[in-house]
């Protein structure tokens, strides 16, 4: 992820750029991501054999919901929304499972699956602080790579598809697809900056022009479509039969929803890194807000009868390129998407793009999806252990997807569950991560009351820990100093929150390579210790408030304070060797 340069941002997240600039930038981003928002429902519904009328509804609803949730990201409502310019659009991760759902029960079945699975996203957000240890970027990245693999056949079916009046053996399809693919690829590989963002759009336009030369483009629907109006189909409704089809598909939907939430979790962190002028610790409440808004987006998508949406990582590249991170841009962008929903001409133009061109566009989309999976995996750290988790899950997922793993020995229910490589792969990844989490679990733990009276117990605990790992008295004292200051800080925060019965503080400790990691789990607090430490001046001011922070930051080699809505994690790492 590109880091923000201190002087680079023209407008940071809280700034208010002129309305005209914000609206113009909002428009530019919407044009960039419009193809994604509209083409994904088109791909799914075409592949599933749905009528063009049904498709117009799905596009209409996708634009409305994406617009609304983009505004929510920019202007949060309570815990819903990140407060950052995170643009939302139809999720490519759902292509494979949604196609299957529409094939089996049309938009109503898809809608019910989306509504039901969206609920798990709220649960994920509420328990983000706990689940992040098992549903890690390593797991999420592996599943995203498997999703790309699952979309692969759909993409090549589209590339090979031509209208009835064209000879399937003619060069029309392959040439149009090839031109689209190589233009996007060329721009992606050879250009930099603004142009790279426009690659998919330029490639699609050039590919469509070539396709129209071959007679693949039918503009009849574009001419017939109104400039302003409502979709020709009505709300598809929900499928409330809750039969076998729903239960068969639900596990896969739940997994993709969780993976979507992990993706949003990643985007929620990445957008913060590029949206402020000076480095700040990640605000996990904002990340929870981003995931909640994503959940609301999925819930509304289901209720409205369209595919789920998610945050678009384009939002992050756009901030880096335009150097404008103001949320006003997202508000204008969201409003524009909602306006576009009522312009059927626009969706008709995108619907007129031939399958071969759409197929080539999807091929790039899944290449990028796979790359995003890889990047998430590397974010989790490519250690020996993670390597095993990623590769074993990926290859077993591939094996199950292609029905190569004991297909004759598995009962039918196991086939229903495991034949999706994404489901089986994530199952393996989560299981292995759990095993690793148990292996790496803390060596010792203690529960302390949130009061000064707990200091002796803390010191006894830390002294014993230091002896166990063979540290000398000086190293033990440094550990105890860091521990005491951390506890004092957390107690202060508890007192400021004026709770009648402060939540006890749980401390777990783990040794790793000559260092001891202390993790304090406490109730929610307002101030972030990383922020306070980074605000300390070069020269000590010898005040009571400062002294504790200085002692803590002096004796700890690393400090990480993660604040969630429901709890706080403070990680303090102390080295056995003194710092020079």
């Amino acid at each position, binding site marked *: 992820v590109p880091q923000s340069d201190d002087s680079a941002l023209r407008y940071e997240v809280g700034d208010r750029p002129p309305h005209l600039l914000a609206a113009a930038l909002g428009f530019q981003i919407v044009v960039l991501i419009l193809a994604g928002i509209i083409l994904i429902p088109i791909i799914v519904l075409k592949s599933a054999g749905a009528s063009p009328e049904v498709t117009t509804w799905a596009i209409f609803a996708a634009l409305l919901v994406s617009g609304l949730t983009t505004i929510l990201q920019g202007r949060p409502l309570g815990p819903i929304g990140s407060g950052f310019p995170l643009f939302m659009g139809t999720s490519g991760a759902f292509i494979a499972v949604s196609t299957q759902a529409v094939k089996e029960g049309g938009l109503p079945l898809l809608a019910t699956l989306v509504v039901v699975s969206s609920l798990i996203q709220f649960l994920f957000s509420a328990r983000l602080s706990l689940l992040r240890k098992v549903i890690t970027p390593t797991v999420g990245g592996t599943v995203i790579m498997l999703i790309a693999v699952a979309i692969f056949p759909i993409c090549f079916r589209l590339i090979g598809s031509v209208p009835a009046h064209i000879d399937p053996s003619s060069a029309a399809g392959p040439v149009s697809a090839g031109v689209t693919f190589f233009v996007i690829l060329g721009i992606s590989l050879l250009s930099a900056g603004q142009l790279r963002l426009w690659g998919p759009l330029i490639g699609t336009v050039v590919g469509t022009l070539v396709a129209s030369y071959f007679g693949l483009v039918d503009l009849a629907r574009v001419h017939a479509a109104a400039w302003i109006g409502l979709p020709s189909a009505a709300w598809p409704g929900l499928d409330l039969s809750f039969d076998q089809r729903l239960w068969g598909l639900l596990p896969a939907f739940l997994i993709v929803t969780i993976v979507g939430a992990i993706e949003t979790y990643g985007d929620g962190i990445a957008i913060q890194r590029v949206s402020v002028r000076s480095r700040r610790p990640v605000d996990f409440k904002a990340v929870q807000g981003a995931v909640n808004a994503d959940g609301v987006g999925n819930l509304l998508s289901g209720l409205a009868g369209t595919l789920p949406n998610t945050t678009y990582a384009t939002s992050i590249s756009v901030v880096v390129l335009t150097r404008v991170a103001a949320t006003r841009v997202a508000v204008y962008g969201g409003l524009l998407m909602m306006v576009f929903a009522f312009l059927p001409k626009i969706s008709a133009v995108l619907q007129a793009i031939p399958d071969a061109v759409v197929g080539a566009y999807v091929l790039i989309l899944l290449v990028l999806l796979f790359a995003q999976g890889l990047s998430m995996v590397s974010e989790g750290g490519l250690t020996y252990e993670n390597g095993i988790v990623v590769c074993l899950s990926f290859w077993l997922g591939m094996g199950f997807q292609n029905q190569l793993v004991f297909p004759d020995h598995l009962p039918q229910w196991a086939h229903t569950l495991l034949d999706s490589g994404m489901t089986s792969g994530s199952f393996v990844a989560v299981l292995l991560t759990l095993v690793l989490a148990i292996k790496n679990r803390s060596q010792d733990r203690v529960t302390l009351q949130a009061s*000064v*009276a707990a*200091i*002796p117990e803390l*010191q006894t605990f830390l002294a014993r820990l230091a002896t166990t790992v063979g540290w000398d008295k*000086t190293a033990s*004292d*440094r550990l*105890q*100093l860091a521990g*005491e*200051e951390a506890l*004092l800080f957390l107690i202060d925060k508890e007192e400021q929150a004026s709770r009648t019965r402060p939540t006890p503080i749980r401390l777990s400790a783990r040794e790793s390579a000559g260092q001891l990691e202390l993790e304090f789990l406490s109730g929610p607090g307002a101030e972030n210790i990383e922020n306070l430490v980074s605000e300390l001046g070069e*020269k*000590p*001011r*010898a005040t*009571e408030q*400062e*002294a*504790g922070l*200085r*002692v803590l930051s*002096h004796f700890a080699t690393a400090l990480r304070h993660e604040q969630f809505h429901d709890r706080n994690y403070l990680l303090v790492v102390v080295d056995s060797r003194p710092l020079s």
Partner: protein
Amino acid sequence: MEIEETQSGGVLILRPQGRLDAVSAPRLQESALGHLDAGTKSLVLDLENVDYVSSAGLRAVLVAAKRLQEMGGKLVVCSLRGIVQEVFAMSGFDQIIESAPDQAAALDMLS
């Protein structure tokens, strides 16, 4: 925490022993303020036997030093060593609270 108290030519010498943490520091503060209330204007805080000081300990020293300053008196800490000296230095307290290498030097500074 044990606090040894001696007088030397009108100067009060407090020699705490052990650790100055969030639990013991209030005791030192209480003892020092008690003496200041009783009229002591020159105080030496001999930390030779203190092998641990946290920000709570620094706070106790600061409170006593400020009170003495208001009263027109003076506080000197002495015999800082090891981690205690390190904490005084990196928190900047060695810049605002006078310190001496040993008790004799501290008494000289107050005479």
